């Protein structure tokens, strides 16, 4: 083989092209890469003898990825958008989500700094925020009181205890109580964990895909 680095050179070129075109709309980016790959394949098929030098010449004639992408932006009327920098909006969304859930969710969906998937996760797993969880907890507390030691007994008209029979909790009660405690811990951690997740998933310096008219 006379062009031992052919694939390496071509893959490297296409990777640089992909990186340069990262902020173009997905379809435009893919079309450009497909066209350029087809071009290289066509050019290679025409070389009588392939060497690393002929590959380099093919890529040289194609042009620097940055130059080609800049030209594409110009031709297709696509502006290079400055990177979006998360700021107060995102901080407010993350901080408010566990406490004033409605406001947090609105800010979450308004911000372009998160992907739709993360916005959905953030909206669902914050569980409506702590006020909602608290209200839910109060209702649940009324419905299912924790069971444990219970004593049956009473007093007679003179104030003497006439019966005092206490029963210990059954195994099922213990399991139920443990599960209850775990559920409460999870309920109270989830909104904060969700906020933490959103903070980590912020797309710092993400470029926006926008097409100028």
């Amino acid at each position: 083989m006379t062009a031992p680095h052919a694939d390496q050179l071509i893959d490297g070129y296409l990777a640089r092209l992909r990186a340069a075109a990262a902020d173009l709309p997905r379809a435009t980016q893919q079309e450009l890469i497909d066209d350029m790959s087809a071009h290289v394949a066509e050019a290679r098929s025409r070389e009588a003898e392939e060497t690393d030098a002929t590959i380099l010449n093919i890529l040289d004639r194609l042009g620097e990825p940055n130059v080609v992408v800049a030209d594409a932006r110009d031709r297709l009327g696509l502006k290079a958008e400055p990177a979006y920098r998360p700021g107060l909006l995102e901080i407010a969304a993350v901080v408010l989500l566990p406490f004033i859930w409605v406001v947090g969710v609105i800010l979450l969906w308004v911000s372009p700094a998160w992907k739709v998937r993360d916005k959905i996760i953030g909206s669902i797993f914050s569980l409506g925020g702590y006020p909602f969880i608290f209200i839910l907890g109060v209702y649940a507390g009324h419905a299912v009181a924790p069971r444990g030691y219970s004593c049956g007994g009473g007093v007679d008209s003179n104030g003497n205890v006439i019966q005092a029979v206490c029963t210990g909790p059954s195994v099922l009660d213990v399991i139920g109580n443990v599960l209850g405690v775990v559920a409460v811990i999870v309920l109270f951690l989830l909104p904060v964990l969700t906020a933490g997740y959103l903070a980590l998933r912020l797309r710092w310096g993400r470029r926006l895909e926008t097409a100028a008219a």
Partner: protein
Amino acid sequence: MCYIAGVPADGLVSQMRRGALEYCVMALIQQTPRYAFDMIEALGQTGMLTTEGTLYPLLSRLRRDGLVRTEWRESTDGPPRRYYELTAEGRRALTAFRNEWTSFRGAVDGILKEATKS
């Protein structure tokens, strides 16, 4: 392009070449559909296209604007090729440019010639 006046003559020429290139490409496929590599070879001899890769965004643009349509075809001596063909709208645009260009060239030539006489 209103900023042409602001760039030096060098930039002006490259802007003109850039603008005219779209129509040169359309003229290349006026008679028969061609694939991009074929067009690049034809343009390469004229000096109209120095960075070959820039032809592809141009072709995308023409297709997006409905001036050309494309079709992949198998080839006997290489990988499949995407052929570009002029649409009716493309033909109208090319004819309009041809008329504009002829009168523009005539006007500029006339003035340049007058200037050298005096």
